[in-house]
């Protein structure tokens, strides 16, 4: 894991040496706040952050692939991948380094939503545990989307293609678990199959964490999601790095 820290450090710094980080943070913070207040944060008269967290999947479907698309596509297009993989760094170390740097960056974006927490605490007495698990769930969801985006970024040299493909993949994971989708599916699919779709969708696991319970099945869902896509990224990069 020697190469890992070098890649992680470089990658994380690179977010802040380009305008990327600032544009992302401003847009993300604006919309996460805007959607929350627009959907009746005050009208609900409840001191919790449920509205805030419920909007995050939709926001992340677009924002996370935007962060992930450059991870490998840019590296391959500019040719710097030839430098990276002729340094004593393995493909897996590099994939992990880049992924974690981006994940920590998204973590920073989530931490910067702290004014929401402060407002809720001023207005009432919220269940702090619930807010905490909400953040854990959001962070895990960001990691899952990021791993998917990382894969599509490794698969295509073109950033736009990798962005579009990962938005679609992430949207499928979210929308498959929406009640409307499930009720539509149940009109022509056997119930076992509909249940399977629900279990595989991200929405069900995210909502279950939002309820304040960190269950093994939800955590393992995210761990498998992330590990699987990361492993797939390593394999596809090993094959295609020079192409």
């Amino acid at each position, binding site marked *: 894991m020697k190469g890992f820290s070098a890649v992680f*450090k470089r990658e994380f710094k690179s977010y802040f040496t380009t305008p990327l980080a600032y544009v992302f943070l401003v847009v993300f913070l604006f919309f996460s706040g805007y959607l929350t207040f627009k959907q009746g944060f005050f009208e609900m008269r409840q001191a919790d952050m449920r509205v805030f967290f419920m909007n995050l999947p939709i926001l992340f479907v677009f924002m996370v692939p935007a962060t992930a698309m450059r991870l490998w596509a840019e590296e391959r297009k500019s*040719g*710097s*991948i030839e*430098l990276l993989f*002729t*340094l*004593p*760094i*393995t493909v897996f170390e590099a994939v992990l380094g880049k992924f974690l740097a981006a994940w920590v960056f998204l973590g920073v974006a989530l931490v910067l939503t702290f004014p929401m927490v402060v407002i809720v605490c001023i207005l009432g007495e919220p269940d702090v545990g619930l807010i905490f698990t909400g953040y854990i769930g959001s962070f895990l969801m960001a990691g899952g989307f990021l791993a998917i985006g990382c894969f599509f970024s490794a698969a295509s040299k073109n950033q736009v293609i990798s962005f579009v493909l990962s938005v679609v993949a992430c949207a499928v994971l979210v929308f498959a678990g929406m009640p409307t989708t499930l009720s539509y599916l149940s009109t022509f699919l056997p119930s076992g199959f509909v249940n399977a779709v629900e279990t595989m969708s991200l929405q069900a696991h995210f909502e279950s964490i939002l309820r304040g319970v960190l269950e093994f099945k939800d955590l393992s869902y995210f761990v498998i999601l992330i590990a699987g896509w990361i492993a797939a990224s390593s394999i596809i990069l090993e094959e295609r790095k020079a192409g």
Partner: protein
Amino acid sequence: MIKIEELRRSFGPVVAVDGVSFEVERGQVLGFLGPNGAGKSTVMRILACFLRPDSGTASVCGHDILQEAVKVREKIGYLAENVPAYNEMTVGSFLDFVCDSRQIFGKARKIALDRIVPMCSVESVYHQTIETLSKGYKRRVGLAQALIHDPEVLILDEPTDGLDPNQKHEVRGLINKMAKEKCIIVSTHILEEVEAVCTRTIIISRGRILVDSTPEKLKEEHGCSLDEVFRKITRTKVA
């Protein structure tokens, strides 16, 4: 120190390298010549463990390129043809990144940087971002990156391309200075460069080795300049 056996690699229907074998020892500077698309860069990329050969094998300092890729990369300094670098980084932070990934820390890093920065004359652009540099300076930064860990084996793909005559002269001087204790492979299209730095020449075309000799012998055998020798060999033998 470098041993290549029956290396083959194709890209789709195009055979880039077709059964190349040779050995290079310490103290040798091998000039790797050939027309465009001859397979020079592919052989170098395989040696630097960036590409995998379809068949055949190679070893660098006793380490197999397929089994011990990371060890091979530790031993090699590699300058790729188009000098890949992270354009948004400054020269200083880029070299720091290379030191990080090559595990050069603390005092060793300071010594390495103090040696390499004046050697490749990049002091004046040390705090500039790489995207703002001219082609010549970019190549010097690439050279600094390749030499920073004082590697035993150097693989330089057209190291003087884009440099002005003074810089070319400097780089050749640099190669000559390091020649004794290292094993160096240089690919180039500039034949006077071969005469200036190389102790041995391999001419390759369409993925096959046509000639393995020294520049002096080649000139003697054919009784003309290296330029003409190159034209004679690559035109007649391939056609």
